[in-house]
Every structure is written in structure tokens, then in C-alpha cells.
């Protein structure tokens, strides 16, 4: 995605390295970089998370906030479900090509990708539970993502951050009463409880998918491409896999070339295997993030603090 220009010699070095299974930073084709994950940093949002994928404190950095709003039902909309609205924005400070209107295309592409993964039953979120009163009111979850820095693999960072934000999302409790109106008809009314302690977590988040992005370089592919590798990659395919090991979404990006079909079936198989590992890794990082949030008063150790904290 980033338009880094490399010399033909550098490109050849990367391509041959990938074809031999040895990337420029010593990783194997399927090895992923370190992840830093934090949740709960946006206090006004119902859920928030920030994820950075990269080495030594420098990497692709995405901040996601989830805000829940009550919407009034309009005729024509589905009657008994809530909805999810995604929006991704790449900050102009993330990369030079995002200045001015440079980020428009990629914003649209990433928004559609997030939508494909998280908007709908394939995401696992129980949309029926988001309905407050059928044909009257429902919750809308606004998922807003901001890409703060780009060092390769925006997609997986984005999905990790969104997943963490949704897992940490909690909605205010809603009290629904049915009252008789003047003509004796039963009307339902709802009231959102305004207590910051009285919250219910979002339901269905244990089924949220995680994504694995493959970049085709030469005749082979790599997972979690660095900036330089993305500059050489011909095509990119993102596979979202649920904890039940079902493929929830697939999106191909990259305008240079298509994918050979034989590589595609290999990629789908590999995606499931990697997703399993990633879900475990995610779980570890998420629990750590929750623990750090709970114990807010942490003494920063000045050893290499800047490598750790955001």
C-alpha cells in the first residue's frame, strides 16, 4: 500500500529471499512481528483499543474506537436487529502519500474490508441482541479506526485493534417497559440507564474473526509483510477466520496482478492454521492489556519504556 521506491537490486534481493524462505529481517515466510496491544484508552467511547505491529516499538499503528448510539427505526429497515457502521481513516501523518486527498482510495478500501469482516452475521456479533424495541429503536455500533503509522500490514493491525475494541465494548443497560397509552394500546418505551458502572458487554464477541494477510512476492507468499516487502508484492489477500475455524471473509487487494488459483487454495489452508496461532497470541495480549488497564497505576520502568508503552 505504501509507495516506497526500491532499486531493482533491492527488489531482486527481497524476491529471491522470499522464494528461498528467508526474508530480509531473518523471518520465515509465515513468521509475524511483535505486537503491542492496549485497550480502554478512549474513556468516552464504549470500547477502544490501539494495536501496533512491528519491531522495537516502531510499526503499523492503528487506533479503534467503538461508539454505540440509539437509532430510531425507519420503515424499510430490518425490524429486529441492530447495525454496525465501520469507518477507517488513514491519518496524513502516517505516510507521505496520505497527505491532502491521497488517502481517499485506501480509506474506502479499508472501510469496505472492515465492513466485510465485521458487519453482518459472519462477524459473530449478535445483532438481534442489539435491537432494543423491534420496529422502534436499536443500537448502532460505530466502529471508527484511525491509522496512525504505516510500516507494512495495515490490514491485520486494523483487524486486531477492531477485535480488541469490540471485545472491550460494553453498552449501557436498557430498561424496556410496556405502558398502556390513552387508547388502551400497549406501547413499549425504553430508557437507557445512565450509570457508568451499570454496563453489559457486547454479546457474541467470542466469535469475532481474526485476519491473516498474505502478500504474493515472486512465486511465493509471506504473512505480515514489511513496508519494503509490500513495495515488491504483486497482490495481497486477506482471509478472516473465526475461532470456529470457518472462513468469514476474503478480500484481495493489490492492483498489479492476479493470484494463481493453485496458490489460492494453499493460502486458504494455511490461513486457518495461522489463524489458530494468532487467536492464541491475541488472547495472551488481550488479557495482558486488560490487566494493565485494571492496574492503572503502573510504575514505568525506565529501562526501555519507549519500546513498550504507546
Amino acid at each position: 500500500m505504501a509507495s516506497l521506491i526500491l532499486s531493482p537490486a533491492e527488489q531482486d534481493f527481497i524476491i529471491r529471499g522470499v522464494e528461498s524462505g528467508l526474508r530480509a529481517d531473518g523471518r520465515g515466510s509465515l513468521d509475524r512481528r511483535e505486537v503491542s496491544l492496549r485497550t480502554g484508552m478512549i474513556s468516552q467511547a464504549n470500547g477502544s483499543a490501539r494495536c501496533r505491529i512491528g519491531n522495537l516499538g516502531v510499526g503499523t499503528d492503528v487506533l479503534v474506537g467503538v461508539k454505540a448510539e440509539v437509532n430510531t427505526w425507519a420503515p424499510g429497515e430490518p425490524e429486529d436487529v441492530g447495525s454496525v457502521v465501520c469507518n477507517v481513516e488513514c491519518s496524513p501523518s502516517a505516510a507521505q502519500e496520505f497527505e491532502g486527498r491521497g488517502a481517499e482510495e485506501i480509506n474506502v478500501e479499508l472501510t469496505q474490508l472492515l465492513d466485510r469482516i465485521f458487519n453482518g452475521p459472519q462477524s459473530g456479533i449478535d445483532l438481534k441482541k442489539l435491537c432494543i424495541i423491534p420496529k422502534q429503536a436499536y443500537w448502532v455500533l460505530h466502529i471508527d479506526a484511525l491509522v496512525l503509522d504505516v510500516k507494512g500490514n495495515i490490514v491485520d493491525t486494523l483487524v486486531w485493534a477492531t477485535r480488541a475494541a469490540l471485545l472491550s465494548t460494553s453498552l449501557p443497560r436498557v430498561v424496556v417497559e410496556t405502558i398502556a397509552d390513552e387508547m388502551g394500546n400497549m406501547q413499549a418505551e425504553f430508557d437507557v440507564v445512565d450509570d457508568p458502572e451499570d454496563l453489559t458487554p457486547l454479546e457474541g464477541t467470542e466469535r469475532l474473526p481474526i485476519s491473516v494477510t498474505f502478500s504474493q512476492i515472486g512465486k511465493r507468499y509471506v504473512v505480515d509483510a514489511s513496508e519494503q516487502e509490500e513495495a515488491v508484492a504483486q497482490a495481497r489477500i486477506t482471509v478472516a477466520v473465526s475461532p470456529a475455524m470457518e472462513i468469514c471473509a476474503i478480500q484481495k487487494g493489490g492492483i498489479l496482478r492476479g493470484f494463481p488459483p493453485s496458490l489460492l487454495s494453499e493460502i486458504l489452508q494455511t490461513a486457518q492454521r495461522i489463524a489458530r496461532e494468532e487467536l492464541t497470541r491475541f488472547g495472551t495480549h488481550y488479557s495482558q492489556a486488560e490487566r494493565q488497564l485494571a492496574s492503572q497505576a503502573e510504575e514505568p520502568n525506565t529501562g526501555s519504556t519507549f519500546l513498550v508503552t504507546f
Partner: protein
Amino acid sequence: MEIDEQPQRMDVAARIVTPGTAITSDTAFMRGHGTFAEHDTIYSSVAGVVERINKLVSVRPLKQRYSGEIGDIIVGRITEVASKRWRVDVNSRQDGVLLLSSINLPGGIQRRKSESDELQMRSFFAEGDLVFAEVQSYFADGALSLHTRSIQYGKLRNGTLVTAFPQLVPRSRSHFHILPCGVDVVLGVNGYIWVSKHVPASTVEANAELIYSDKNESISDDEREVIARVANCIQLLNRLYVKITDTSIIFAYEASLAHAAKDLLTRDVATELAHNVMTRLEQQQA
């Protein structure tokens, strides 16, 4: 006027300051780079170390753009092919300039520049190419003028680029190092560092026609692993703010052999290795 006599003066000895820190209120001092004055007090405007030379107080910033000096050995990336010159990204405030008259033409150093050379400039350097050059002079607007008029300079091949902070690459006698592990390292003073497979000098001289070739030599898996390891060592030295010299790279490489190349960039291993290197450097100086 003795410094110690005035009681209300702040200590201006070397110390680390952040933007807005008051350095001194003594009007005897003149303020230099990295400071500003409000009423009678001199404040720091950057994050860095206070330096005092006689009556001049200045702050040397921790992070600074590379500003070239004549004789600097640098690595640059061609950004534009213009009329009889190339524009080169040298990690500075301005792009540097490489004139057509400042490069070696294939066929021998003494070959005269012809009109056809000007028309096929991209056969020498095209956009994106990495060039190993020396700063020859400045243009009137402060842009650096580069030259590659020596056999060791020219187009870079067979390796990978690592970007570091310019202030971590000290100026020294030689910037091209052949490491004992079989890897060549070019330490550009501008922070661009090229790590590549070792190619014997005899091969380079024998093929004077191929100095602008884009073709890499064949690189074996073992050589690739060593290149990755050295590149990672330089990255971790950079992130943990250790000076990058051939000595520190060799120390880091030796300490890194206990770990897999890909693990060198994890926080714990990187911190441990950097401390290791710093200890050895201190011991060596002592």
C-alpha cells in the same frame, strides 16, 4: 567574571533538557542554537544536552536532520532524473545533486562525456537506485553536490538498506567495512546504511563495464542469513541509541549468535544485546 561568584545563576553544566526548561537567568550569557529568551531567562527550545563554550549557551538536540559537510561519505537514493544531473534523497532537509560530470563513466575513468551519455542517463542511475557517494561541495542554496569519482563508489547491489539516526553514525576514516562474518557494510553518515554480500574487489575492477548493472550476484541461504543478522543488529543498535561503528556492529553480531536472526528485533533480546554491546565498548575504552 567568575561563574561561581553569582549565587542566583543556574548551573549551566552539561545536562539534559526538554523544550521549555529554563537554563539560566544570568544576562552574562549569550544564547546560541536551540534556545530562546523570554525576558531575562534563556530557555531551551529543543530536547537535548546543554553546551557551554565561554559565554555562549546552546543546546545540542538529540534528534537532528542530517546536514552534510564536505567530504562526508553518504548513501543516497535517486529520486529524479533531470537534465545532466540526478536528484538524490540524502535524508536531509534538501535533496542532494549528483551531476553527470561527477560520475564515473563505464569504459574507464578517463572516458570523455558524450552527448549520448546525457540522453541515456537512466542507463547509469534510474529513480530508486541506491548510490554510494561523497559530498564534494555545496550549491548556492545549500544543497549537497555529490560525486562518485572513485572505484569504490557507485551503485549499490547485493544487499539491503537499514535506516538509522544520522547522529549515531560518527564520521571516521573509513565508511566501507568488510566484516569478519563475510558481509560488507557501508555506513552512510546520513544514516542510510547498506549491508551486502561481500564481493571481492578484484571482481569489481575486472568488470568496469558492469559498474551500473542492476543484477545481483547469486546469494546463498547462509549469506542471506548473515546479511539479515547484521541488518537486524544495526536496527537494534539504532533503536537503543548506541553509536553505529564497525566495532559496535561486530560486538552486536557476536552477541547475537546465541539467538535466531528473527528474534533479534524482539524487545527483550534487543535490550539485552544493546547492553552487552555498550558494556564491551566501555571496557574497550577503559
